[in-house]
């Protein structure tokens, strides 16, 4: 990579969430990646954000209570019966 393609830390940090979220444009991705590989300051920040995402995702794993699942089915079945028997 030539000197003019290098990007400074503050630009990497500004685009870091987009990179971590996999939403960054392709040519910028490569430059951020190249920077992260060699930067002792930015890489731990990247690592921290990845750890944050794994952590909140893990916390979210709740399932719908079985009773509610059943009530949703019943609500839809009731609606279905209304569709089938037109009110006279």
């Amino acid at each position, binding site marked *: 990579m030539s000197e003019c393609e290098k990007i400074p830390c503050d630009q990497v940090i500004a685009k870091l969430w987009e990179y971590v979220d996999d939403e960054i444009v392709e040519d910028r991705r490569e430059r951020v990646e190249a920077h992260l590989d060699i930067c002792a300051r930015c890489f731990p920040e990247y690592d921290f954000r990845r750890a944050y995402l794994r952590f909140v995702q893990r*916390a979210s794993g709740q399932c719908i209570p079985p009773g509610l699942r059943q009530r*949703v089915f019943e609500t*839809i*079945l009731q609606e279905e019966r209304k569709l089938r028997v037109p009110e006279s």
Partner: protein
Amino acid sequence: MSAASTLSPDRSGEPAISKPGFVEEALPHMDAVYRFALRLVRGRESEAEDLVQSTFLRAYRSWESYTPGTKVLSWLFTICRNQFLRAEERRGRRPEVTESEVEANVESLAATAVFSEVSSADPEKAFFDSFVDEEVLRAVDALPDPYREAVVLSDLEGLSYPELVEILQVPTGTVKSRLFRGRRLLQQALYDYALEMGYVRPRSRI
């Protein structure tokens, strides 16, 4: 009546739920819609239950307007969020803080405050491991509406920026800034809580 029997054909041989595709495409997302609803109403279970019921009822009534092949989860989340906003309006709840007030608050946080505190006090991964799920969810629930919904859709449910744009009806730039600020607020709240609970020790300043 069991969940299985509600889905099987009735005596006339017709499927109990007649709208094509609804059972296969919409119903598998009940868990995700419940999780989203629960965070929208900040953990109040009975409100979340009402919200899930009304979301799926609306989805069933409007199933014809869902475009097959598009992401059904985004469509369901949109319905869920609209039902939530409508219920809030009926209850006469107004947003407790405006976005600009929150922004002023967020701006006072340094850009990488939590990261720098944590990485010097404690290895960062151990920092996150010190929380139990309920503590994290409580911190998420405490985020102001615009940040909470962005963080939940993106970080808890794994949706993309374009999907957030569609559901929240704001431009990509706004999605990015809400995520940026929401994450910062959440990390700061977790850090403050960790200090209070003694999970981490304050960084010694010399």
